[in-house]
């Protein structure tokens, strides 16, 4: 009887581990790259966030700002701020990332990319 209970309990643990593996983006590739700096695998992040991170890296920006329309989208805002770190979001910075097609007063578009654009804005 004890052995039967043991088998059932261990099987229940295994089944639940398999459930976790299936549910949460488990991939052996992640394991083999787990010790690679800046590895992100196929992490599901907004296109704008990935683009901004690449621009920040290329342009070596220490600080950046985000347009109001950008900040209104909480998901986009939080993912961009945390993923772009150590480059810091700063509300006093005059270099703004805007969503493509945005047209804000007191801002001059510097460059357009696929999903975002960089503008230099006069801070009020």
């Amino acid at each position: 009887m004890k052995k039967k209970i043991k088998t059932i309990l261990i099987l229940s643990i295994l089944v639940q581990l398999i459930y976790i593996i299936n549910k949460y983006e488990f991939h052996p590739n992640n394991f083999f790259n787990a010790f690679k700096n800046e590895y992100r695998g196929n992490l599901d992040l907004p296109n704008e966030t990935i683009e901004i991170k690449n621009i920040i890296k290329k342009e070596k920006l220490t600080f950046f700002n985000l347009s109001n329309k950008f900040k209104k989208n909480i998901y986009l805002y939080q993912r961009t701020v945390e993923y772009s770190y150590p480059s810091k979001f700063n509300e006093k910075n005059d270099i703004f990332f805007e969503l493509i097609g945005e047209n804000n007063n007191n801002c001059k578009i510097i460059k357009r990319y696929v999903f975002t654009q960089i503008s230099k804005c006069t801070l009020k």
Partner: protein
Amino acid sequence: MHSKINLSKLIIIFYFCIFLSILTMSLNYSFLIILNSLLFIFALLYLLIFIKIDVYFKIFITLLALINLSILTSSWDARSIWLFKAKIFFFEGNIFDIFSHPQFSHPTYPFIGSVFASMFAKSLNIWNEVYPKIGIFFLFVPPLLFLSTIFIKNYLYALLSLTLFVFGKYFVNGEMDGLVSIYFFTSLILTYEIIYKKDDNSFKMIILFLNNIILSLLKFEGTVMIFLFILIYLFYYTLSKKIELKKLLFLKISIIPSIIWFIYSSHINNVFQLNDSSFSIKSLFFRLENFESLILIISFFLSDEKFLLGIIFYIIFFLKSKNKNLFYLATSIITFYIIILIFVYLSTNFDLFWHLNSSANRVIKPITFIFFTIPLYNIYLNKLKL
């Protein structure tokens, strides 16, 4: 016997490494940080290779560590709060400069999970979307290992199965609620053993002391739990003298680190106007005017099927149990905790429905876990065959 002594020391080393990480990360000396991480890793390897403990328990820990390293960090709170804080500590090297943290990362929240995760990242000087999360998982090791000395054979497998059932995803997603649950349970049964079973040897006192400190620094919920434990110790000391004054004072000290953090973070919050406060007395009084909010909160709690199942499980075993002391202790803490949770939700500045929807099922995890594990522990105490 020889192996058992080593295991006790090893458990203390694990707890000590976590506690020490606050110091090494505060000092920000690479050498000390690497030494701290190595000590933990060596202790873990020593446990897996040399210590004679249940082989399935070893496999369980190893598998979860491997799964952790194969899953990307994607959950909202892990990315926006816990591992974001760890990332800031990793790059900035100062765990107290919280005034510059973005507001959504909740700068004033307790920090030990983030500090510990950051320590492992700093040791290898690697930041990516997989590896730092392992530090959060490693925090599960000390309480699980300690519990493996109390629950043996089938009781242990039942406990591990219940941990996966109640908060399985929290082993791999980098959030704190699974940790709060397991540390809470450990503190609860240690408190029971010290008060009722008079099993207050120095090893258990040290573990309870360290476990309390870490629990109080995981999340504010943990701080509240430790506060409740202190009240329980005080209650038993005043009314029944079931705890010696010396031990009572020792256990009381365990709340000091979280109080220091609370005072410090509140000070920073006021000085730098971080506005990291989601609660107010005004909201509380406003919602106390009618019962709608209260009903909404309770209905959210009861809509969690595991919570509901846990209540039924708990009540059945409570009624069947001959010695109810364990249930009285657990029920008193759970009741106070739920009352505090209700008051916290009533005082939220956010839309109540949104706040409950985004957090209720997480904050009740520790209670759900207690509902399932206290009956299991009671069965074990009564030596029923399993």
